[in-house]
């Protein structure tokens, strides 16, 4: 299969992908290597390798409370993802199975909601959360994260459920299952790939979210990782090595999850756009 033209096209494709990969990997690598540098090395030899690979910067980062920030991020991410997946899954199932024109309109509204950036509604959202007395509360930030994550996840699940074989649901109906039982006994067990993809998508977004966390979690013991790392920088100086160490710790959990579950991620992306 293929001649010289195919080989050339493949070479070009691989070349572009390799270049792009380098553009992504190099800054990350620089960040990790930066965690092992002294301040002097940081500014005098920014592109060079560190002279030693000691854990001092990591110790300073952990001492500044990275452990607490990590735990807060984990709690907020896990709770938000669970809420998003449960609500979106059930909503998308109903929307994908309905013939009602009104429900289709609801789906369009949900898709339109996805287009609203968080920055556009930051002030009213802050006032809403503040008025509800939920500032500086981990659960208080889970709700807006869920609200922002649900539209996209509904779209993801909707595409999945459109392709889900209706005969299985019909068989379940004839076997005596009402719609709720059909959803939990037949549909949900087979929705693993979509759930994994949705969870990864949302986990990455929530873990890296900064603005809302900055506004709503001002108590030091409640800060998430992205906001807590700021503490490593003062008004006039910054412990860049510790910051790099903190950021390196921050990306580790997500990197691990993505590496383990990437096939679900890719499979689900292929089903989008319906």
């Amino acid at each position: 299969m293929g001649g010289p033209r195919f080989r050339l096209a493949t070479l070009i494709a691989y070349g572009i992908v390799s270049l792009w990969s380098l553009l992504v990997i190099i800054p990350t690598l620089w960040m990790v290597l930066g965690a092992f540098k002294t301040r002097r090395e940081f500014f005098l030899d920014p592109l060079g390798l560190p002279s030693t690979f000691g854990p001092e910067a990591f110790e300073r980062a952990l001492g500044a409370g990275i452990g607490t920030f990590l735990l807060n991020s984990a709690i907020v991410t896990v709770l938000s993802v669970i809420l998003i997946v449960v609500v979106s899954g059930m909503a998308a199932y109903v929307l994908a199975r309905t013939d009602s024109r009104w429900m289709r309109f609801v789906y369009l509204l949900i898709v339109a909601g996805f287009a609203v950036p968080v920055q556009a509604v930051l002030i009213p959202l802050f006032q809403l959360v503040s008025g509800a007395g939920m500032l500086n509360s981990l659960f208080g930030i889970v709700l807006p994260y869920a609200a922002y994550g649900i539209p996209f996840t509904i779209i993801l699940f909707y595409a999945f459920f459109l392709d889900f074989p209706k005969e299985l649901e019909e068989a379940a109906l004839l076997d005596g299952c009402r719609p709720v039982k059909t959803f939990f006994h037949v549909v949900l067990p087979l929705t693993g790939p979509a759930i994994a993809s949705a969870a990864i998508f949302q986990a990455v977004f929530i873990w890296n979210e900064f603005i809302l966390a900055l506004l709503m979690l001002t108590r030091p013991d409640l800060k998430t990782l992205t906001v807590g790392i700021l503490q490593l920088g003062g008004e006039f100086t910054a412990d860049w090595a510790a910051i790099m160490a903190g950021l390196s710790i921050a990306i580790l959990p997500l990197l691990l999850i993505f590496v383990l579950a990437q096939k679900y991620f890719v499979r689900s992306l292929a089903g989008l756009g319906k």
Partner: protein
Amino acid sequence: MATLDIRNLDKHYGAFHALRDINVGIESGEFLVLVGPSGCGKSTLLRAIAGLESVSGGQILIGGRDISRIEPFDRGVAMVFQNYALYPHMTVRQNMGFALKVARQPKAVIDAAVQRAAEILRIEAQLDKKPKALSGGQKQRVAIGRAITRSPEVFLFDEPLSNLDAALRSQMRIELGRLHAQLGATMVYVTHDQTEAMTMASRIVVLRDGEVEQIGSPLELYNRPARRFVAGFLGSPRMNFIQARVRSSTGRIVSLDAPHLDTGAGNAPSLDITLAPDAAVPAPGAPVVVGIRPEAFADGAGVGWQLNGTVAVVESLGRDTLLYIDTGPLRAFDSESLEGYFAVHRTRQMDARHGDAVSVRIDPRHVYLFDDERAIAWPERADD
């Protein structure tokens, strides 16, 4: 087992009329086949019986109970789907016992029902496997087993053999026949394959465009089709049809002629057909359609129409031979071939080649006659 009555059933999808005034009565223990071309409404009718489609009008009664507006799981029916619809995350045992589990039956009852069904279908060795580890035939048996464990009043089959290869299809046809005899169950079976319909049915319902064309036993429909559509649909290859015209009529005998025909005796072409007792006599000059089954062509000279032509296509089936004959300007219409060749069936091996001259005869005793779609004459039969 129960009777199934369908009365004045109507189904609309918006402006599209999918089922029109369907009336069918099915006896207890009967194997009824719904057959027809794609889009005729047979699957819609089956799904309406199952409750997977709502009805726009009419009634469906099982054992005298009106189930038209009852939930599917309360109707006393079980369905076998075309692509099996087995739950991929459950084992065969769990698939077959799922309905009983949903009904909160004791485990002992579920196990006994599953074991019994597995023995009937000879799939005991597959009980702890998942569907993806099974062959197509095994999956179909599990789907049937799932229906059996529900102990329904009526079994519904939606083209269950369509996804199987030809050899397996033949095997499963025999298996289903055995199953029907063993269970004595009322079964409604949908297929587009007229071979399945002819070999499996107690009675056949032929559907077209949402309407019932004819209901009867396989041989009734084959020998006495009420309409040209039924005559052409049942039988493979299809019946050959020729456009003709009534030359004259004497009592209940009509004389027909058709362009480009030769009696072989140098006379103007004419075919004398005796009409059915209750058929109206068409007026002279009226257009009619002559039908002749591929196996009914006679050899040699004699009474009737002589068809002279050349062999266009030969299909040797080992035991039988099918010849498609090009008869020049005379063409069959609505035929097996797009070119209008005449299909001739012989129950012997023949050494025929493309281009060979061939001559066959239409004997008036073996002719069907149709007047505007309705049958008005059938071949004589020894058992009439």
